[in-house]
Every structure is written in C-alpha cells, then in structure tokens.
C-alpha cells in the first residue's frame, strides 16, 4: 500500500468538505473492496476519510411507503432487516448471494454499489487495462474473457459490474441520495449512477469527485412476487457468471454489463403480453458476445425465463 493519511469524519458535511480540500482523498466505509485494491496498488488514495461511523447506518421508513437504507448500513444489516425481507425479498436474497458472511458484516451499502470489477486483467497490474490505467489497452478483449460483458461493452473495456445487491436495487427502481462537495443534498435514480465503459472505463459513475452517497431509497415494492438468482462456478463465496433480479414486472440482469443491467426490452415485452422466454429473447437480441462468453446468451435466457416464470407463478 502507498502511504496515506487517515481521518475519521465527524459528520457527513465535514467528510465531503475534507474530501474536497484534500488531494487524493477517498471515502472508506467497510473497506472490503478498497483495501483489497490498495494492497495491490490498483487504488492509491493519499488520504482516507472514514465514514463508517457517521450516523447513516440506519434503515428507516419513508413517507411514501418505501425504505431508506443508510449508506453505511452493512450488507448484513440490510439483508437481515425484517422490513427488507418482507417487502423487498429480492434485495435480501441478492445481498446474501454475494461475498461471505464476514465480508457482508463489514461491507456497506454504498461501498457495495461502488465496488470495482473482478476482471482478472484489472487485478493483474502487469497487464494492460484501460480501467486501471487509462490508455493502456484491454488485456481481456483478446484474452480469457469468459466472464466478460455481453451488453454495452466497448473495445476499451469488457468488464462487468459484479455486485449482486445493485442488481436487485436496479430491479426495485431505487434512488440514491448524496451529499455533493459543496454540501448540497441531491437524489437521483440508481440507474443513473453507473456508466457504460465507452472510451473512459476508468470513470465508472456519474458522481462528482468527492460526492458522498448517503442513502439508497427504495420506493414502495412493486406489485407481484420477487426473486433473485445467481449462477456461479461454486455453491457459495464466488463471483457470478450471470444473475437475474425480478420484482413484479421489473427485471434486472447482473454480471452481463459494466453496470447492473435493467432489462427494459424484456420488461416492455412482458408488459405487452410476451412470454418470459420471448421477452428475454428480445433483451438478448441486443447482446454482443465475444466468443468465450457466448454461453452467457443461453444462460441468461434460461435463467431469466425460469425466474420470471417462477415469480409470475407465485404472484398468481
């Protein structure tokens, strides 16, 4: 790890102020992804602002019948919350499909959203990676890219976003609340948080530098059942090959793109009466596999069809 200085923020406004004033500053909460990357010097912050003890770990009801998840709430706390389990089971299931209990006990809501890709070429600092070092090239493009994106990739980057939680939140049409460096609060759809890689895969979100996520806001649950399913190479404690989150008629896919992938084409087809398999076929018509990850097309088709059908059956 490169040397850095550390401070524990006293409140959120002080945290964003410090971030704005200190060169190379980064927020740290659970640190399960940031420290992993700092040890490899993929991340090299000069200053860490610890926001894990700010009073934003609570889970509270919103006026509109939704839930506000504090950004510093641990993944475990969210997945175990009885309101989450009762009203947003897809979220609890998705969180529980990720990492390990120990990681979930430490990882925060915001940190989970901002976790970086697990692409092997990103992790090996001797390999070219435009995400790690802009302009160095993409080692994965012609490499062992079995787990690469099938939607929205570019020649600069074919990495996937590997969060499970974010897939469920996308299907639930969650918003995020932030504090900007100037101390202003703002709120926008989670769908607008992550970017597709384009030519700048090192820029992963639409956050302003030094902007702090303070909460995730869940709207009231959509009518219908919910489910999350993830496919992976071993039974637990492994990144996914693909996942699907379904909440009523809302569908999101995981590990298929640089961001959690809202399956809008499939949703539109479903709402106009298409079968689950027809709907997901519409979505996959827009996919661009690379060869080694071709299997994701039938995998996603079968997985999403099964889960959408199952959820529809449960709702009926």
């Amino acid at each position, binding site marked *: *790890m490169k*040397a*850095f*200085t*550390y401070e*524990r923020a006293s409140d959120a406004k002080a945290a964003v102020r410090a971030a704005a004033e200190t060169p190379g500053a980064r927020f*740290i909460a*659970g*640190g*399960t992804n940031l*420290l*992993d990357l700092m*040890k490899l010097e993929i991340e090299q912050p000069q200053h*860490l602002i*610890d926001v*894990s003890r700010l009073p934003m770990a609570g889970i509270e009801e919103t006026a509109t019948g939704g839930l506000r998840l504090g950004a510093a709430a641990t993944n*475990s706390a969210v*997945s*175990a919350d009885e309101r989450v*389990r*009762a009203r947003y*089971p897809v979220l*609890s*299931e998705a969180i*529980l*499909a990720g*990492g*390990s*209990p*120990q*990681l979930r*006990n*430490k990882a925060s809501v915001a940190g989970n959203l901002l976790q970086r890709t697990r692409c092997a070429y990103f992790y090996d600092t001797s390999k070219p990676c435009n995400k790690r070092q802009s302009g160095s090239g993409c080692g994965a493009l012609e490499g062992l890219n079995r787990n690469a994106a099938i939607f929205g990739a570019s020649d600069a980057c074919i990495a996937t976003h590997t969060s499970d939680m974010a897939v469920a939140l996308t299907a639930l049409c969650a918003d995020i609340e932030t504090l900007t460096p100037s101390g202003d609060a703002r709120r926008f759809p989670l769908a607008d948080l992550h970017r597709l890689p384009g030519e700048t895969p090192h820029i992963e979100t639409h956050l302003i530098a030094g902007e702090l996520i303070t909460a995730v806001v869940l709207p009231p649950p959509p009518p219908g059942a919910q489910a999350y399913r993830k496919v992976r190479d071993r*039974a*637990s*404690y492994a990144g996914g090959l693909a996942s699907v989150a379904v909440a009523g008629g809302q569908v999101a896919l995981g590990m298929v793109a640089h961001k959690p992938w809202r399956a809008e084409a499939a949703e539109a087809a479903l709402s106009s009466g298409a079968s689950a398999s027809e709907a997901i076929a519409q979505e996959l018509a827009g996919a661009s596999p690379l060869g080694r990850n071709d299997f994701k097309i039938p995998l996603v088709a079968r997985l999403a069809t099964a889960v959408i059908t199952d959820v529809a059956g449960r709702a009926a």
Partner: protein
Amino acid sequence: MRTTITVNGEARSLDLDPRTTLLDTLREHLKLTGAKKGCDHGQCGACTVLVNGVRINSCLSLAVAHDGDEVVSIEGVGTVETLHPVQQAFLTHDAFQCGYCTPGQICSTLGMLDELAAGWPSQETAPGAAPVFNDAEIRERMSGNICRCSAYPQIVAAIKDAREAMA
C-alpha cells in the same frame, strides 16, 4: 497513529502506521498469531476475528479504523487448559488437519451462531422464514472459511456438537 483497541479484554494502545491491517496488528505487533494470513484479500477467511461481537476478515480492515473497538481473536476464546466448547468440538471431531484455517473457522463459528440466534437469514433460509439450524445452513454460513485440507464434513459435525454443548 495512536490507536487503542481492546483485544481479548485487554486495552492495547499502539502507535500504528495507518496502513497496518487489524490482522498484521494482531500478528506482528501484539504477537497474537492465532489469526492467520491465508490470502490477505478476504478470499479465505483464515483471518476471521470478532469485532464488537461480529465476525469479519481482519485482513481487510485497517487497525486505525478500529480505535475504541473490542476485538476477540482465537486467543480470547479459550486456552489449552480450558478449551471453549467450539474448540473442544473441533478437536473431538477432527475438524481440521493442518490447522491453519482453524482459528478463523472457530471465530467464524462463534459469530455464525450469534447471527443464527439473531434470526439473520442466509441464502439457504426460506424467504420470509426464520432460519433453522441444519446442515445446509451451517454449510452456507461457513462458506467464507476455506479449508484446503477439506475438513468440511467434520466441521459441520463439530459445530452441531458444540451448539448442543453450549445450550
């Protein structure tokens, strides 16, 4: 940075490089080498300790971020003379071979039993239902602790036995 952490009931005040992980603090500064470094990246669970009663990977944790926290490592669980029921059960069921993952497995077990008692779900828990204590739940909940010697069946047996002994 001056950091004070209560480790196994004893307040320890240390002047630490902010880069020092909780794991390296225990192992290199406090000579408490029970928590193990298997991967240093949260991929194996050998470094598992309890912080304020909750199991975490101490390798992915900065010690300075734990100022004021209470840490229990394997050395605080039991001694050779007075084994904790979980330690005794691991011994009785041969729930380890090389022993390197064992302290992490045992600390993880303690955290896991508390999580179960608190009703926390796992992906093996039926939606909306309270978790039940069974083999499938144990297996899923202990999957953050890799044992390359693969004492997995023995670990499940030990945990079931220990829970009865602790009841």
